[in-house]
Each structure stands twice: as structure tokens, then as C-alpha cells.
């Protein structure tokens, strides 16, 4: 219930809504995807005064253990319950059916239940913009892409990026490399390998690299920083220019592809607080500002025009971005 504490600040909003948030595997602190989700949660906590509970599924989680985690949250009255990551899809489907009065949301997947908001992102659209920026910023006509695990989700980033870059410079050379095959869970945790791959791209002439590789992305930042001025890194998910853990590299982070998981999470919570939960497929695309690019580094200024034009074309439907 609302706080009866006399000393509570009068201005702080309070709400009886309890938000349960379930991360996959080891949880937040990755400086990108999970942290973006947390940012939205945290904003809701301050802005809307909701109570929060965060859990993670741990390693070697199964659908059963994920389902149990969500069930426990729902049982304890958490509403909405937000599952971060496509690994939760089966589990969430089952739990949502058992708790029809609770609102659920899932990031990056689609679950066909009336009480589930499916928060999907047009990552290819955002990546298209970074592709435009990368091609515009590249002096050498050679850019790179570093992927984490080689799965469709990440391939969409690559596809948009390539398409965007080619729209600026059809002859551009684009190197791309994944850190691990599908199923190889180490792919997100090997910055040393990402660094080697990025350094090799730089060695071959690439001067802008975009990484969508979770924790491995760090290696790309390192390689770009070592290559020195004239080389740029493009971050992913969060605005990595402002991520404290990456402060050392911020001068080299031209921009980041924003996958506004924070917005989606916040909107989901706000929907419940306002009594109008989001349900169905919520496609967070450019038109909804669900994806985009970061402008916190002023170095991106010269390329904004091109990027914004591309964004407008995509919104207008004159450009369709491929996911493959």
C-alpha cells in the first residue's frame, strides 16, 4: 500500500503498484541490454513511485525454473511482471494463462496471451541509422560489425546496419564477425576475442565499428581506442557514451544504437499504473521512438542530418529495412 511514513517526502509520488522484473541468466550489470531494462524500471520507481522486485533466472535455467520464478512473482502480487529476454517466452505463456488478472510483458519475444504486452524492437531500423552514420563518418570506406552469438536476433542488427551503410556508400566494405555460434553461451563474455576481431578489421582499414555483442562489445571499444583518433566505435542498446563502466572509451563512442528497452519497460509500468496495461504486440520501432541513435557525443552532429532523413523515410515507409 501507499506509504504511511510521516517522514516521507510529500513530493515523492507513491503507488500501490508492485513491479516484478525477471532478468535472464546472471541479470543486470551488463552495461547494455539488461541495464537498459533496469533504467526503465528505475525511472518508474522514481517517477511513478512503484515498488520493485528484481530477480534473475541463473545459469542453466529451464523453462520450468523460469516459469516458477514468474509464478512466484505473480503469486506475491507483483503486477506487472516483466520478463527481460526471449528465453522467457514459453514460461511466460504458461504463467500468463494461469494469472489472467495480472499484466505481463516480455522483451524481444511474442507470446500470444491477452494479458501480455510483447515488447519487440525494430532493431534493424535503429541499426540502419547507425549504418548511415558509420558510412558517413568513415573516411576509408571500410566499416565493421561485431556480433555476439550468431542468432537471428543479432543478425537483424547486422542486416539493418549493412543496408543503412550501403544507402550512403554502395561500394562500402563491411567486415562482420560473430563471437560465437548459436548455443555457445561464451559468445557474450569474450571481450578479448571481440578486441582481436575489431583490431583485425581496423588493421584491414576499417575506421568505424558497430558491436551488438553484449559483454564482448567492450573489446571493440578497446580496439578502437587503441587505434586512436580517426576511428569510431558505435555502441548498442543503451547510450553507451554515458555508461560509467565505459567512461574510458567515451571519446571514441560516436553514437549508440538505442534499443529503448527502458522506454518500453517504463511504458509498460505506466500503463498498469494508469489502469491501461499494454497488451499485444508493441512494436517499438522508429515511429514510436522505440529505437534510435544517441546524440550525447557532439561528434555525431555532422551526420545527424543524414540519419534523421533516413529515419523520416523509414517512418514514412519510403524505406523498408530488412531483418535478414
Amino acid at each position, binding site marked *: 500500500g501507499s506509504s504511511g511514513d510521516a517522514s516521507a517526502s510529500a513530493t515523492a509520488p507513491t503507488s500501490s503498484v508492485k513491479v516484478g522484473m525477471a532478468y535472464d541468466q546472471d541479470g543486470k550489470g551488463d552495461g547494455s541490454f539488461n541495464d537498459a531494462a533496469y533504467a526503465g524500471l528505475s525511472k518508474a520507481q522514481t517517477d511513478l513511485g512503484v515498488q520493485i522486485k528484481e*530477480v534473475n533466472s541463473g545459469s542453466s535455467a529451464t523453462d520450468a525454473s523460469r516459469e516458477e520464478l514468474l509464478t512466484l*512473482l505473480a503469486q506475491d502480487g507483483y503486477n506487472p511482471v516483466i520478463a527481460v529476454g526471449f528465453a522467457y517466452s514459453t514460461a511466460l505463456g504458461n504463467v500468463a494463462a494461469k494469472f489472467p488478472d495480472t499484466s505481463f510483458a516480455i522483451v524481444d519475444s511474442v507470446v500470444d496471451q491477452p494479458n501480455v504486452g510483447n515488447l519487440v524492437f525494430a532493431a534493424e531500423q535503429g541499426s540502419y541509422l547507425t549504418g548511415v552514420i558509420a558510412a558517413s563518418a568513415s573516411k576509408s570506406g571500410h566499416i565493421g560489425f561485431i556480433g555476439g552469438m550468431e*542468432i537471428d536476433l543479432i543478425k537483424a542488427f547486422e542486416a539493418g546496419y549493412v543496408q543503412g551503410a550501403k544507402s550512403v556508400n554502395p561500394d562500402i566494405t563491411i567486415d562482420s564477425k560473430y563471437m560465437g555460434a548459436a548455443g555457445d553461451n561464451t559468445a557474450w563474455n569474450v571481450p578479448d576475442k571481440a578486441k582481436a576481431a575489431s583490431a583485425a578489421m581496423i588493421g584491414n582499414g576499417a575506421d568505424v565499428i558497430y558491436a551488438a555483442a553484449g559483454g564482448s562489445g567492450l573489446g571493440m571499444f578497446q580496439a578502437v581506442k587503441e587505434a586512436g583518433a580517426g576511428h569510431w566505435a558505435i555502441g548498442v542498446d543503451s547510450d553507451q557514451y554515458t555508461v560509467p563502466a565505459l567512461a574510458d572509451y567515451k571519446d571514441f563512442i560516436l553514437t549508440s544504437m538505442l534499443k529503448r528497452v527502458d522506454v518500453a519497460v517504463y511504458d509498460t509500468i505506466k500503463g498498469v499504473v494508469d489502469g491501461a496495461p499494454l497488451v499485444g504486440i508493441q512494436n517499438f520501432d522508429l515511429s514510436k521512438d522505440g529505437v534510435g541513435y544517441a546524440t550525447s557525443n557532439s561528434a555525431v552532429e555532422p551526420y545527424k542530418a543524414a540519419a534523421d532523413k533516413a529515419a523520416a523515410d523509414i517512418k514514412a515507409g519510403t524505406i523498408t529495412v530488412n531483418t535478414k
Partner: protein
Amino acid sequence: MNFRRFGISLIAPLLGVVISVAVTSVILVAINANVGDVFSSMIRYGTSPRAMTLILNLATTYFLSALAVAIGFKMNLFNIGVNGQYVLGAVAAGAVAGALTLPKIPSVIITILVAMVVGAAWAGIAAWLKVARGVSEVISTIMLNFIAIAIISYVIVRTSVGHETSLNVRGTKEIAESGMLRGLALLDEGTKIYGFFFISIFIGIAYWFILNRTRFGYDLRATGHSASAARTSGIDARRMTVVTMLLSGAIAGLVGLPYLLGEAASYNLNFPTDWGFTGIAIALLGRNNPVGIAVGALLWAFLDVASGQLILEGIPREITTIMQGLIVIVVVISYEIVRRRQLTTEQTRVAKALEAQGVSA
């Protein structure tokens, strides 16, 4: 006599649990948690019908994995490759079951056979390397684990075996309901005890029977007691190595099935890939004895399941991983101490008994 030995062999696991609970309590105090509350809520939750069902289901997986390891241990073969064997087994089983459109019983039997054959074949490589080329199975199975993971991603990502089963999830084609073995809702109306739970009880009994009641089992145990004496007695060590490794691999091939047929319906890339290591730990806890392994698997599964409740109370779930690690290390050390003590007490006891009979040993 046997009760005595049985009693002594209980000391080690109890000690393991007690010490790990003690150390965990210290850690909990250090992080300002209420020790009593934590343990009582773990137990309260762990004894609720739904949690018990989950524990039984998870324990089924662990039990099979530990049996696969244990059968090798029984003759001093270290099958570290259960991981590779079960993931390959599960992918193959998932692919075949996904393609089948048969009634339940034949479908499930074929699925099980496929998993066993694939697991055994993968283990067979290590067996061949050992008997024909003298390569230690410890290192070859570790290498084979890495190779298995690569094969699986190749198969699922680059061949027609892989399908997009839900948005962003790739796996084998979803198994039709007729091919599943979802089980029975005995304890909790919402959650089913996996069908494989019952099958694995049967496998446990078969394991016990084969080991203790068949000549093959005797040969296997004798080789474990003393390879040189076994050889002199006419046991063909190479053949035993191959057969045991194949058996171990066949059981390993089943490890993924309780979950695959009970729940997942498709082997996708979120499928856990480290149950083999858990199996090693549990085989150690259970001393390669099926009842011991069952208890160990239940304990392990209890800790895993209860960790979900802990995290809801703000306690990092990894505290249970520490407990598991501690239990294993304390138990293996105390088993060793107990074993030595047992030997000397038995020798002394025999000497005393004979003295009392008035004869000299």
C-alpha cells in the same frame, strides 16, 4: 554388519550438509540476512506441492546424469563427457520426435532409443580412443564436449533441423503432443511430475539390478575394485571399458529427455548444457549407489529450486551454489576419511573377534 557399514556411510553426507549449512549461515550473517528466516523459508517453500513437483522433475534429470557418471566411476572410468553426450542425444531425439507422427508409445520409444544411441555413439568415440589408442577418457571426453556444442549450433543454425520455434528462438521442430511425455499432476494440480520421473525410477532399479545381480555388473565392479585381479579372473578389460562407456553414454543420452519430453518440446539454444557436471557432483554425493544418487539429486534439486524463492527475498540465489560446492568438497573428503577408518576398524574388529574365539588370525 551391513547396517554398520550403511550407518558409517551416512556420516559423510550428513557432515557435508551440516558444514555447508554452518558456513552458509556465517555468510548470511555477514550479509545481514536473518539465518533462521532464510532456512525456514527455504524449507517451507521447498515442501509446498508445486515446489516438490519441480524438485522431483529436476531431480529426475540430475539422477540420470549422475547414473551415467556413476556407472563409469564404478569401474574407475571418468566420463566427463556426459554434457556432450546428452546435448547431442537431446538434439537428435528432438529432431526425430519432431518429425514423427506416431501414437504416443511408439513415438516415445523411438525418441528414447535415438537419444540413447546417439549418446552411446558419442561416448563410443572416447571408448575407442581409450582401448585402441590409449587416450585417457578424461581428456578425450572434455574435447568431445567442446566439439558437441559446435556440432549442435551448426545443426540448429545452418541445417534444416533448425526452425524458429518462437520469435528469436531457434530449435528443433516442436514435438507434437502425442510425442510428449508430460506426466501426471500428482502433487500439485497445476504442475505435472514428468513422465520420465517414473521411467528414471525404472532405470535406477535396472542400474542397481545390472550392477548387483548380473554377471556383467559383477565384472564391472570387480574391474573397479582391482583391474589387475579382474584381468586375472578372466575379465576382458578392453571389452568392459567399451561396454561400460557405451552404457554410460546411453544413459547420458537420456539426460535431456525428461525436460525435452516433459516441458520444452524442442531442443532450442536455451537448453541447459551443463547438467553433466552436476551429474558428476551428485554421483560423488551418492557414492555411485542409486539410492544415494536419488537422495543427492533431490538435495541438489531442492537447493536449486529453493534458490528461486531466496532471490525473491533478496538473497542472491548463488548462495545455494556455494552450498552445493561445499557439500561436495566436504563429502568427498569425509568419505575418504570414513573409508580409511572403516578399513582399519574392520581389520581390528576381525582380529578381536578371532581372538575372542581363541584362534590367532
